[in-house]
C-alpha cells in the first residue's frame, strides 16, 4: 500500500501545526466561531449535538495494521472507547474535546494519517472498491489513481471554497462496489480496444435531497490526462455552480440545469485550455504509486480446499467471503453489524484486534467498506478457520454481509445536529426483528438516513428508510427499489410514513410479501423490479 515520503509527511505535519494555531486563535478569541467553522470543518471537526465529532480520512478505505491500531488507541484515549466507520470509508469519533483535536491529529500524522478535507466545501476523501487488488474482475487496481487524486486534491488552491462539498470515487471493474454513479465525479478505470488505460468520467450524481444518477460525460479520457480533465470538471463547477441556495449547490444541480451536453461542452473547452497549462502529473508519478500497490508476496501452489465441517464457519464463509484473484486466498469481510448493534461501530479493543489480525493473516492490510464493514483482503484459505474463531470470540464473526441485518445507517438524531429523526434505534430494531429470517430472505440492502441529506444512502437501498420530522414527532418514510451497483436505481417512496414501531412492521411486511412472491433465485430487488410498487404497497398498507 501507499507509503508517505518526506514530502507527504511534511505536508501532514505542517497541517497539524496549522490547526494547532487555528485552535489556539479560536480559544483565545482572535477569531469568531463563524470564521473558525470552515477551518475546523476542513480538518474534519464538526460541532454536533453533544460534543465535537472528528472525522478521520482513510484514503480509498485502505489501512495498515499500525494505522488501525492507532485508530483504536484514539478511541480509547480521546473518545469513549468507540469509533464509528462511515459510508465514505472513514472513521468518526463522536465525543471529542476541541482542545484535544490538535493532539489527535499529531497522533494520526505519526502513522501517515490525517483529517484533511473530511468536511467543508472542498474535495473530500476519495473512495474506491473495498476489494481493490484482490477482486478477480478488476481491469487494474483502482487505488493508484485514487492516490493521485488524493495528492492533487489536497489543499487545492482553487477548489477549497467550492459551492458545496465534492465527492469522488474510483473503481476499475464493471461490478460497481463503490456506488460510483452516486458521486459528484465517479471514475471507472477502463481499458480500450488498443489495450490502453483510460478513465470514464461520470459527473453529477449524488444522493441528498435531490438524488441523481451521474451521466457519463466522457467514456475514455487518456490516463495521462485524467487529472487535467478532473480539474476542468471542477473549474466549470466552481465558476458556475449555484451559490444562492445551499440545497441547489451540488454539481448534480449544475449538470441537470445546464443539461449533460452543455456541461460537457464547457468541460471540454476548459480541458482544451488546461492541456496547454501542463498541470498533469508526470506518468512516472503514477508508476511510483503503482509500485506501492503491487501484489503482496502471495504463496503459490496453495490448495483452494476449505474444511467446512463447522456449520457456523461454513455459513460465515458463504456469506462474508469473496473469491480472490490468487488461488488459495480469499477476501474476508468482518461485519460491524452484530444483531441489535450500532452499524459501523467498533470498540477500541476490537479495532486494535482487527489491526493485529490483518498483520497476522492479511499482509498487514485492511479496508473499510462504504457499507461500514471491514475487509481483510488477502487471507490464506488455510488460515481462515483460525481467523474466524478469533473474530467470533470477539463479537466480530456475524455472518450477515449483504443480508437484511447488514444495515447502513447514519448517526441520526442520537448525534447529528442536522438529523430530524434517530436512525440507530430503528436499525437495531429491524436487525433484531428479522435476524431469524435473514438467511432465508437473502441479499437485501437496507439503508437508513435520519434526514434528507441521505448520509445513510436511503435512496440506494433495496429498502430505504428516511427519517423526517412530522410536527415534532419522528416519522419514517419507506422506499423500495434503490440500488447502487452497475444497475444503479433510485428508491421510490411507498406512501405515508410510519412511527418507529410502524416502520419496523412495514419492513417485515415487505420482506414477508417478497418471500411469498419470489421466484427461483430472485433477490428482494429482483422481485420488486418484476412485480412493482403497487403490489408491495398493497401488502404494506392494505
Amino acid at each position, binding site marked *: 500500500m501507499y507509503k508517505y*515520503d518526506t*514530502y*507527504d509527511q*511534511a*505536508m501532514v505535519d*505542517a497541517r497539524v*501545526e*496549522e490547526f494547532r*494555531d*487555528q485552535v489556539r*486563535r479560536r480559544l483565545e478569541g*482572535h477569531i469568531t466561531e463563524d*470564521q473558525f467553522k*470552515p*477551518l475546523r470543518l476542513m480538518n474534519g471537526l464538526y460541532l454536533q449535538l453533544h460534543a465535537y465529532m472528528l472525522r478521520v480520512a482513510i484514503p480509498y478505505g485502505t489501512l495498515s495494521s499500525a494505522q488501525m491500531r492507532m485508530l483504536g488507541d484514539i478511541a480509547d484515549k480521546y473518545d469513549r472507547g468507540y469509533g464509528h466507520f462511515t459510508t465514505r470509508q472513514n472513521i468518526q469519533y463522536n465525543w471529542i474535546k476541541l482542545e484535544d483535536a490538535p493532539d489527535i491529529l499529531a497522533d494520526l500524522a505519526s502513522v501517515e494519517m490525517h483529517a484533511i478535507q473530511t468536511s467543508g*466545501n472542498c474535495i473530500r476523501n476519495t473512495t474506491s472498491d473495498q476489494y481493490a487488488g484482490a477482486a478477480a474482475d478488476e481491469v487494474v487496481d483502482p487505488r493508484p489513481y485514487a492516490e493521485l487524486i488524493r*495528492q*492533487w486534491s*489536497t*489543499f*487545492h*488552491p*482553487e*477548489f*477549497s*471554497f*467550492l*459551492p458545496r462539498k465534492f465527492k469522488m470515487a474510483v473503481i476499475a471493474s464493471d461490478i460497481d462496489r463503490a456506488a460510483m454513479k452516486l458521486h459528484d465525479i465517479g471514475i471507472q478505470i477502463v481499458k480500450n480496444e488498443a489495450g490502453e488505460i483510460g478513465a470514464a468520467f461520470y459527473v453529477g450524481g449524488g444522493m441528498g435531497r435531490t438524488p441523481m444518477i451521474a451521466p457519463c460525460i466522457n467514456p475514455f479520457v487518456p490516463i495521462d490526462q485524467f487529472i487535467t480533465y478532473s480539474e476542468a470538471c471542477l*473549474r466549470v463547477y*466552481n*465558476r458556475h455552480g449555484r*451559490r444562492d441556495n445551499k440545497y441547489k449547490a451540488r454539481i448534480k444541480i449544475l449538470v441537470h440545469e445546464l443539461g449533460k451536453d452543455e456541461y460537457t461542452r464547457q468541460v471540454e473547452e476548459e480541458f482544451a*485550455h488546461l492541456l496547454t*497549462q*501542463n*498541470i498533469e*502529473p*508526470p506518468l*512516472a*508519478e503514477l508508476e*511510483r504509486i503503482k509500485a506501492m500497490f503491487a501484489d503482496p508476496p502471495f504463496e503459490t501452489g496453495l490448495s483452494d480446499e476449505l474444511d467446512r465441517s463447522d456449520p457456523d464457519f461454513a455459513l460465515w464463509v458463504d456469506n462474508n467471503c469473496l473469491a480472490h484473484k490468487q488461488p488459495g486466498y480469499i477476501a474476508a469481510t468482518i461485519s460491524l453489524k452484530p444483531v441489535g448493534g450500532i452499524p459501523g461501530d467498533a470498540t477500541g479493543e476490537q479495532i486494535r484486534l482487527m489491526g493485529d489480525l490483518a498483520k497476522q493473516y492479511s499482509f498487514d492490510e485492511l479496508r473499510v467498506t462504504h457499507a461500514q464493514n471491514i475487509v481483510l483482503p488477502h487471507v490464506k484459505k488455510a488460515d481462515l478457520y483460525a481467523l474466524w474463531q478469533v473474530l467470533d470470540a470477539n463479537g466480530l464473526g456475524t455472518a450477515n454481509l449483504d443480508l437484511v441485518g447488514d444495515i447502513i445507517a447514519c448517526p441520526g438524531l442520537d448525534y447529528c445536529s442536522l438529523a430530524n429523526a434517530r436512525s440507530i434505534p430503528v436499525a437495531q430494531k429491524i436487525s433484531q426483528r428479522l435476524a431469524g429470517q435473514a438467511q432465508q430472505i437473502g441479499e437485501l440492502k437496507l439503508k437508513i438516513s435520519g434526514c434528507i441529506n441521505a448520509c445513510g444512502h436511503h435512496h440506494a437501498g433495496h429498502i430505504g428508510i428516511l427519517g423526517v420530522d412530522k410536527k415534532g414527532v419522528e416519522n419514517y418514510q419507506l422506499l423500495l427499489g434503490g440500488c447502487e451497483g452497475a444497475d444503479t436505481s433510485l428508491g421510490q417512496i411507498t406512501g405515508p410514513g410510519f412511527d418507529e414501531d410502524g416502520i419496523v412492521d412495514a419492513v417485515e411486511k415487505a420482506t414477508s410479501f417478497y418471500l411469498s412472491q419470489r421466484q427461483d433465485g430472485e433477490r428482494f430487488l429482483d422481485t420488486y423490479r418484476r412485480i412493482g410498487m403497487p403490489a408491495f404497497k398493497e401488502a404494506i398498507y392494505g
Partner: protein
Amino acid sequence: MAEVQFRFRGDEPVADPAVTVDSFGEQSNASAVRLEPGDDARDLLPHLDRLQLIEVNFPVFGDGRGYSAARILREAGYDGELRAVGEVLVDQIAFMRRCGFDAFAPEVPLDPADAEAAFARYDHVYQPTTDGRAPIWNLRHG
C-alpha cells in the same frame, strides 16, 4: 476602501480607482477594474495589455469563484497587480497567493505575524499553478 496590507510586487501601485467590469468596457482609458464573483474573468482577456490592476472581490470568504478568476487571468498571461479585496482572511491568503494574487487588501486587517506564518506554512505543494512553485511530483521525478 481598505488599504493594501500585503503586496508582493516591486512596481508602483496604480493610483486609478478600479471600475466595474460593465463600465470598464466603455472607458478605453481605464487601467484598473474590479471583478465581482458573478463576473466572467474571460471578458477581460482582450484588454489585458492595458490593465495594471485587477481587484477581485470576495464579499464573503466562502464564495470561491475569485480563485478561478485569478487563475484564468494568470493563465492568460496577465502580469499586472491582482489584488484580493473584501473578506480576505488569514486562512485563505496562502490559497489566494497560489492562484496568482500578489496584493491583499483585507476589509479587516490581518494580524501580521499570523499572516506571515500563513504565507510560509507549506514548504511544498502538490499541484502546479502559475505561481512558479514546482509541484511535489516534479521534485520527486526531477
